[in-house]
């Protein structure tokens, strides 16, 4: 069996990963942020938003149309019944 590895190897590896990881994460975030501010389309935008909000179903907005004015037809004048007297 091999001799137990010194803690320094593990700590060194963790530190190496942590430094590279933090630097790159910050760099990628900054790039995505500047991209969205500058061109409207960030690098991050190539992945859609994590939780896409479902759009509320919009009611169809009917176009407002001025109702045409239709002149009412004149009511036919009432003709008084002709009363004929019968004698």
């Amino acid at each position, binding site marked *: 069996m091999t001799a137990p590895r010194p803690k320094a190897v593990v700590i060194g590896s963790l530190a190496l*990963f942590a430094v590279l990881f933090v630097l790159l994460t910050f760099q990628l975030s900054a790039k995505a942020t500047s991209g969205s501010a500058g061109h409207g389309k960030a690098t991050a935008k190539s992945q859609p938003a994590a939780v896409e909000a479902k759009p509320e179903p919009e009611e169809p907005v009917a176009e407002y149309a001025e109702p045409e004015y239709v002149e009412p037809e004149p009511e036919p004048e009432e003709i008084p019944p002709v009363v004929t007297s019968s004698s």
Partner: protein
Amino acid sequence: MIGAVPQTLASHGWWIVSRSSGIVAFVLVTISVFLGLAMAGRPVRGPAFTRTMRALHEQTALAALIAIGVHGLAILADPWLQPGLAGVAIPFEIGLHRFAIGLGIVAAYLALLLGVSFYFRRRIGPRLWRQAHRATIAVYVLGLVHALGAGSDTGSPLFLAWAVGSAIPISVLFVYRLGASRRSAERRLGNGHRGAVVDSV
């Protein structure tokens, strides 16, 4: 701009973490494989050089394993991708970039197996372990195909420069090592044959 970074991290955090850990893993695997091949080729001899190279090789390999683990966990937690445990753990299970991601998962298992085997090399047997350790080049090749096929940063000139720039010296060292092993085997055979002739006389 710096103030907006946490906001971007909050909205696309897992994706950015998976990208950065993936790039770090690939870079560290590249360095580790390069150092391993350089050590095997023995361009410079000397105990101090060998000790330093071995320590660097081990540290970069361990750091790469950590990065691979973080990469897998970040992808598992990505709410947009939602690969599920099977998608991250079983090769060729995920629908998106099935082939490239599948090769990445195979590379991760191979890296874990070969990396951990280093600490059990005496139990395995130095000769068998050394033969198995030669498969480490496959981790680099599979990782390269995985990164080019499924990575979000394949269009980055810096990433492409690293991928191409690392492939050339690694290929040269690998071919040199293959040649060295063949020469060494021939020498051993030659010695054995001479020994047999001497024995027979």
